């Protein structure tokens, strides 16, 4: 396309250390915060006025709980997008992981074994995505479009297009249970955010993630096995799908073959709303959390107003295209 990036990259190769040593560790992009924060506040205000029951504590807690699964996709998606990648297979991988988890639990009665199966499957899909992207050099949106089809087909084959029901309390506790009075999914979401934050801003891995999007040539010239880190980012996304499968299965107390199809769109939307750019490794992890909440509030509010699910998705799409336009105008200025 008309991407000037190759030139910038070529120019930057002359200064190989720039992208690596000056890692943008925990660099908040203050200019971006207002965008998503205003959107979130505006939506909350609108729904507080328009939708009866929106401000009920029970409803707000509900928004938080329902956003957990989305958060568990959106945070690794942020990392993937930071590397100038994308993962369109996440919704389908989450679905097939949930189905396999349910089948394993029904077969063996062990939730731990089920979680292990889901994590292994997620990691395997992540590895395939990463390997084809990093080592074969196929653009990630096509790789993950292909694996999306594979995961979708696998979910249908495993279940024969039926739901797998009969989850024991060891599984359902992960959505319906409480830990010290706090709903388990909220605890999971907070821990998941803290872990991802630490990984992105306080480890070498995170530094390389920023460099992979900002200046991969520099990374390679600095002697870093950039390809391994790129594969690692996708494996992380797959593992997150496996973990999210536990919460999803608990929430529906079943494994359903189309449960989370298309959820990757909401995750990508949350990341885009949160101000992470699809080019050049610019982004902000907490922005994605605000993006997830924006998507969650929008869905919940529209739900209270009695709107169909598909219309909610269209509204998210419009919001995302709007956010990209604003981002675009800003970067031009």
């Amino acid at each position, binding site marked *: 396309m008309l991407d000037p990036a190759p030139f910038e990259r070529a120019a930057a190769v002359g200064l190989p250390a720039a992208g690596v040593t000056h890692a943008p560790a925990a660099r908040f992009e203050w200019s971006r915060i207002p965008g998503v924060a205003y959107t979130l506040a505006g939506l909350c205000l609108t729904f507080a006025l328009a939708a009866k029951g929106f401000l009920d504590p029970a409803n707000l807690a509900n928004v938080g709980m329902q956003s957990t699964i989305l958060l568990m996709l959106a945070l690794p998606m942020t990392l993937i997008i930071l590397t100038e990648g994308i993962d369109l297979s996440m919704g389908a991988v989450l679905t097939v992981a949930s189905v396999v988890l349910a089948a394993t639990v029904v077969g063996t009665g062990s939730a731990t074994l089920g979680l292990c199966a889901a994590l292994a499957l997620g990691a395997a899909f992540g590895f395939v995505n990463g390997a084809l992207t990093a080592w074969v050099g196929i653009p990630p949106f*096509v790789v993950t479009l292909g694996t999306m089809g594979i995961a979708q087909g696998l979910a249908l084959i495993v279940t024969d297009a039926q739901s797998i029901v009969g989850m024991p309390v060891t599984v359902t506790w992960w959505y319906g249970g409480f830990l010290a009075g706090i709903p388990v999914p909220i605890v999971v979401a907070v821990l998941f955010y803290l872990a991802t934050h630490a990984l992105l801003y306080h480890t070498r891995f995170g530094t390389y993630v920023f460099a992979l999007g900002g200046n991969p040539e520099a990374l390679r010239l600095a002697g870093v096995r950039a390809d391994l880190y790129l594969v690692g980012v996708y494996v992380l996304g797959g593992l997150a799908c496996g973990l999210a499968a536990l919460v999803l299965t608990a929430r529906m107390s079943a494994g359903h073959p189309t449960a989370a199809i298309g959820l990757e769109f909401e995750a990508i939307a949350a990341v885009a709303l949160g101000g992470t750019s699809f080019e050049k490794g610019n982004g902000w992890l907490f922005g994605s959390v605000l993006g997830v909440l924006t998507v969650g509030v929008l869905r919940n509010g529209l739900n209270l107003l009695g709107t169909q699910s598909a219309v909610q998705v269209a509204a998210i*799409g419009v919001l995302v295209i709007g956010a990209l336009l604003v981002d*675009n105008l800003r970067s031009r200025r």
Partner: protein
Amino acid sequence: MSAVAGVVQRRDWSGDLKAVGYRLIAVAALCAALALVSDAFLTWNNVLNVLRQAALLFLLASGLTLVILTAGLDLSVGANVALSACLAGTVMKATGSPLLGTAVGLGCGTLVGAANGTLVASLRIPPFIATYGMLWVVHGVTYWYMAGSTVHGFPAGFRSLGSGYWLGIPIPVYIMSLFLAIGALFAQRTTWGQEIYAIGANPVAARLSGVPINRRLILVYTLSGAMAGLASLIFLARLNSAEGDIGESLTLPAIAAVLIGGTSLFGGVGTVGGTLVGALILTLVLNGMNLLALNPNWQPLVTGVIVIAAVCLDMLTRRRSRA
């Protein structure tokens, strides 16, 4: 590949011809294999069935080929088919006029395509993000518009567009042939077509050679949308009914057909004729799975594997030609 040469002088198509030739051999091999394992394959009805399905897939994929030639992507074609078909169906039902319904279907597809083109060309949003966002917007609008209802029972004249025959051959096959000729002529014999190749091969060189890149990009996305509109009409005419979810499973096969047909994701390489062969290969594989009574749940899996395999093959041949 030199884009400047592509603009200034006619390209040499012998390489592309060879690529299409290899794929035709693959088609022949697939046909032979299927004829061996299944008695039902070589029946006249089944052959016509394969052609009819390939025609629909080709129409959808032909516009997409132009988009991918510019190193872009249109993920919204399936959703576009659904919205166009639903609008065309309800309008036809309400007014009783097939002409009006056809116009609405084509118009809707074209408009969605033009919106994609504007997002990509004028607003510089990466194509897969812009069209992916458009996918979900269009999907939502379709579901809202249909509200779970189904529209069915169209005039016989309109239905013949999808299920009619002329001289024993299905009408969609004629439409496919027509658009194959138009598409191939447009891409390979017109200046605009050459400019599309040039944009994909080397956008900077194309711009420096004076190609109006934005206008050509808007053109290819609009054409892709228009072809989705046309495909939706044929789909509608064949199914004789429309509901919100009809186009959902068409995007991946359409992209697969383009990629199997030898069009490179990286732009500038490929032919519309190749896409027809790609559509034939994919249809034959899916038809073979049907004949062998394989569970249809396997179809997305197989299509996904084929997409990845096709791109891997493209990468390998590119690497070899560079070395």
